[in-house]
């Protein structure tokens, strides 16, 4: 039988615009193409701007992982200008990005991923009393009452009666591979709603320090929020007490709702620990949530696990990063074969795909706006599973204990963290970890204030007169979705070149010059065994793609400063 061609576009419940094209044979996926279908050109726009403004411009790459691009940007500029920032500002940045990660992961699970596992219509058949008993067996969360579940079921029933299904219109309800009992479905729907309330509350931490969310404010040289315990408008005890409360509520929800839900749901889908296996090389530059320039002592730093050896950590060397364009709608001056390091990055868009509206993109050699970054020639996965697997390989005790307990509960092996279920589980485990870090960072901030160390900004290098004539710097960060790096070159106080390599570029990339597929593609078609029962309702594919938490606006903002003279290119 000839292979069947399937197009899934749009992939919904993600950030940005992603299209997946597939070939299937006998209900299994044999080939996959990951096509990013949006391009914005933000790095080109950065040219000529004051580098102190770059954080605000790059932040607009993404409103979901909002904040992390700003952090990577201010760090790149501070690296270029050799600009140290006060310790207290570091702590505030860590709190802001850490809370961003916690919120982002929870939203991803409940609002972007859960409907892949949870049948909303089945929740209507649930018995609220039985649901309360089920919930009580896995968690002490006080809202897990029969009254609450009854109310949620009623709301849901009213919402869908009369045939107006709103966001649930045309969902894959009743698909034979939805496996949860009605009570588990009702519990998940209830937590879907509670998570919406929760995220609204705890993210205010970013508003207190950064003035707003999404897109809070940052500052090259520190943070703009002054601390003065004896002033009304500055950070004072009122705001600190609010933050204290948010951190406690963040952690409690993660431990009493998110974690038990993920483990309970995972128990019904254990075969997904062998589905969606992707590139066996994984990379991270540190632990999630840390924004600091140096990694705190004892915490896992940058490194890689290569070629399926999940016990041996290979040191990270940024010079081994190169971006390829064999399948991307760009040109390089010296052809499509060689990759380029970000310091020599070139991004000349040249679209040669079909004019929209079109039916297929995979007929062409080029089919995506995402470039293909490779490490030492290899496609690598980045994200929560990479971070946790690296920390385990380094025998980082808290991580070993956390991961070990979850694996034991589910009866899984460490290597199975490289899978659809593994990525989803690791995202949850890391949220438990980061919500714990928040308490430590906050205690550190309190202690700094108690000792009078309230400086949030270093004015030394603020004025461009104190900058070198030309400079270049790199800012690394572990975003919710994986390793993020910003690369900046500055001449005479202005940006001449700016390049970002974003987590979803690593993961969503297409084929490289040697025909090696990117991690999304690999996860779907790598072993020819990925299931797809009903091509019209591609539930299984969504599970696997969503397990990466795609952020496609991030992946394809690229468009750097080409044609501008560069005085000197040197590695940091």
């Amino acid at each position, binding site marked *: 039988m000839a292979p069947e061609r399937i*197009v*899934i*576009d*749009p*992939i*919904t*419940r*993600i*950030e940005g615009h992603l299209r997946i094209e597939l070939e299937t044979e006998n209900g299994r996926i044999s080939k996959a193409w990951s096509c990013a*279908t*949006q*391009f*914005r*050109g933000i790095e*080109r*726009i950065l040219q000529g701007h004051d580098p102190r403004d770059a954080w*605000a*411009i790059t932040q*607009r790459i*993404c409103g979901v992982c909002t904040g992390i691009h700003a952090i990577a940007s201010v760090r790149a500029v501070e690296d270029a200008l050799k600009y140290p920032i006060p310790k207290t500002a570091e702590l505030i940045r860590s709190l802001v990005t850490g809370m961003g990660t916690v919120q982002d992961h929870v939203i991803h699970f409940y609002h972007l991923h859960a409907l892949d596992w949870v049948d909303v219509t089945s929740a209507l058949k649930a018995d609220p009393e039985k649901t309360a008993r089920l919930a009580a067996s896995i968690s002490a969360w006080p809202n897990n009452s029969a009254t*609450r579940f009854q109310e949620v079921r009623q*709301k849901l029933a*009213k*919402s869908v*009666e*009369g045939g*107006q299904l*709103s*966001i649930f*219109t*045309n*969902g894959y*309800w009743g698909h034979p591979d939805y496996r949860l009992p009605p009570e588990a479905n009702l519990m998940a729907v209830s937590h879907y*709603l509670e998570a*919406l309330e929760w*995220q*609204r509350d705890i993210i*205010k931490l970013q*508003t*207190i320090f*950064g*003035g*707003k*969310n*999404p897109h809070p404010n940052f500052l090259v040289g*520190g943070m*703009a*929020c002054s601390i003065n315990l004896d*002033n009304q*408008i*500055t950070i004072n005890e009122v705001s600190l007490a609010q933050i204290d409360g948010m951190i406690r509520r963040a952690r409690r929800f993660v431990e009493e709702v998110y974690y038990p839900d993920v483990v309970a749901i995972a128990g019904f889908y254990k075969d997904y620990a062998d589905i969606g296996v992707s590139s066996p090389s994984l990379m991270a530059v540190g632990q999630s949530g840390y924004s600091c320039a140096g990694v705190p002592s004892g915490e896992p730093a940058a490194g890689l696990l290569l070629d399926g050896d999940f016990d041996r950590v290979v040191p990270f060397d940024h010079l081994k990063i190169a971006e390829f364009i064999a399948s991307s709608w760009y040109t390089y001056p010296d052809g499509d074969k060689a990759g380029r390091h970000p310091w020599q990055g070139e991004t000349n*868009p040249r679209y040669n795909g079909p004019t929209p*509206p*079109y039916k297929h993109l995979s007929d062409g050699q080029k089919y995506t706006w995402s470039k293909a970054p490779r490490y030492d020639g290899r496609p690598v996965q980045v994200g929560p599973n990479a971070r946790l697997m690296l920390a385990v390989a380094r025998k980082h005790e808290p991580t070993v204990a956390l991961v070990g307990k979850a694996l034991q509960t589910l009866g899984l092996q460490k290597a199975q963290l490289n899978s659809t279920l593994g990525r989803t589980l690791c995202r949850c485990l890391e949220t438990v970890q980061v919500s714990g870090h928040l308490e430590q960072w906050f205690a550190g901030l309190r202690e700094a204030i108690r000792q009078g160390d309230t*400086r*949030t*900004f270093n*004015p030394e290098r603020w004025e461009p007169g104190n900058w070198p004539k030309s400079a270049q710097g790199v800012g690394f960060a572990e975003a919710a979705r994986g390793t993020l790096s910003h690369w900046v070159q500055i001449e005479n106080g202005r940006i001449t070149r700016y390049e970002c390599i974003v987590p979803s570029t690593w993961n969503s990339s297409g084929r490289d010059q040697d025909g090696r597929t990117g991690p999304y593609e690999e996860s779907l078609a790598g072993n020819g065994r990925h299931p797809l029962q009903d091509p*019209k309702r591609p539930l299984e594919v*969504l599970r696997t793609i969503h397990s990466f938490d795609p952020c496609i606006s991030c992946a394809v903002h690229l468009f750097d400063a080409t044609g501008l003279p560069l005085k000197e290119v040197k590695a940091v």
Partner: protein
Amino acid sequence: MLPAPFDQWTKNETFTEYLVRQGLSRRQFLKFCGKVALLLGGGALLSSRDKKALAKDIAERLNSAKRPTVVWLQLQECTGCLESALRSGDRTLEDLVLSIISLDYNELLMAPSGEQANAALGKAVAEPHLLVVNGSIPTKEKGAYCVIGGESAEELLRKASRNASAVIAVGACAHYGCIQAAAPNPTGAVGVSDIITDRPVINVSGCPPIGEVITATILYYVIYGHPPQVDQDGRPLFAYGQRIHDKCPRRAHYDAGQYVLSFDDENARKGYCLYKVGCKGPATFAPCAIMEWNQGCSFPIKSGHPCLGCTERHFFDRMTPFYKRIPGLQVPGTGVELTANQIGGLAVAASVAGVAVHSAITVVRKQQTKKHPPTSVPLAVLGEKEPTDSGGKK
């Protein structure tokens, strides 16, 4: 805390029944329709007979209503605007989605993908609906810079707007292109009102707008049946009627000539004015100082950072460098009120060309007759002379 119970308005009841269940009498309902008619008629414009007819018409329309279908497109953008809508308190996005509107197409939230998602869109746009748009429309490369379901953003927008009863452009990208449209605008990004010129487009501006402003604009349509009053740039007056500067908690320090000179200096720790470190509050029409962000928690200036001016057109071109103070102004010290008023006057004149408080119908009529709604005007207060496509880089 549990989320507040939803006020369900279901298909099985008319809008009157719904309001009665909410505690309103029929008499109050008719009075409400009369008020809506008054708002629609703009007071003086309609005769009392017309107003009565309009009130009757509104009552009839509301009684035949189902939950309004909403199509919410995301084009060339970053999802920050929908994230902001998710932060809206009081009337939350989930209230809207589950009980007030039927959100039949939205990529971020909807359950199905691919074919089933496109089928939902096709069905929704074939009937009257409310269209909400995030994101800009890239016009270069025959639309290949943003393609969804195999169709260009522009074609998708045109298709979705054909039967749209109203169009709400949410966020700076949908307003005029925002970051994508910043010089040199590599993808030729434009706003919704540059493509949809045959009907009014409400611009809920900001990068992103405050969540409550987004949900309130949708509710305004759904409850009152007509668009909110807007300024010359299509921005609702209930949110964009005044400058941040007019209601800034640091304003007294501005008037007294007390300024932060460097971040976290002694003056910053006293909460002085941020004008000299680049604050664009004096040139920015936005609700931040009044409503504040994230359910009244704080806003940029309160948290010590200058306003970037993100509700104004082309702020990435016109408000940068962000840390440079607004040029061409004498720094107030003495005679401050006069200077402050001058700044205000200039900003009003230049930025919105005199906020015209038209009735909704007047605005609708005006915009319908105009091929292109008013776009950017020179922001003299920022040293601009002529409008440009994407603004000039400093």
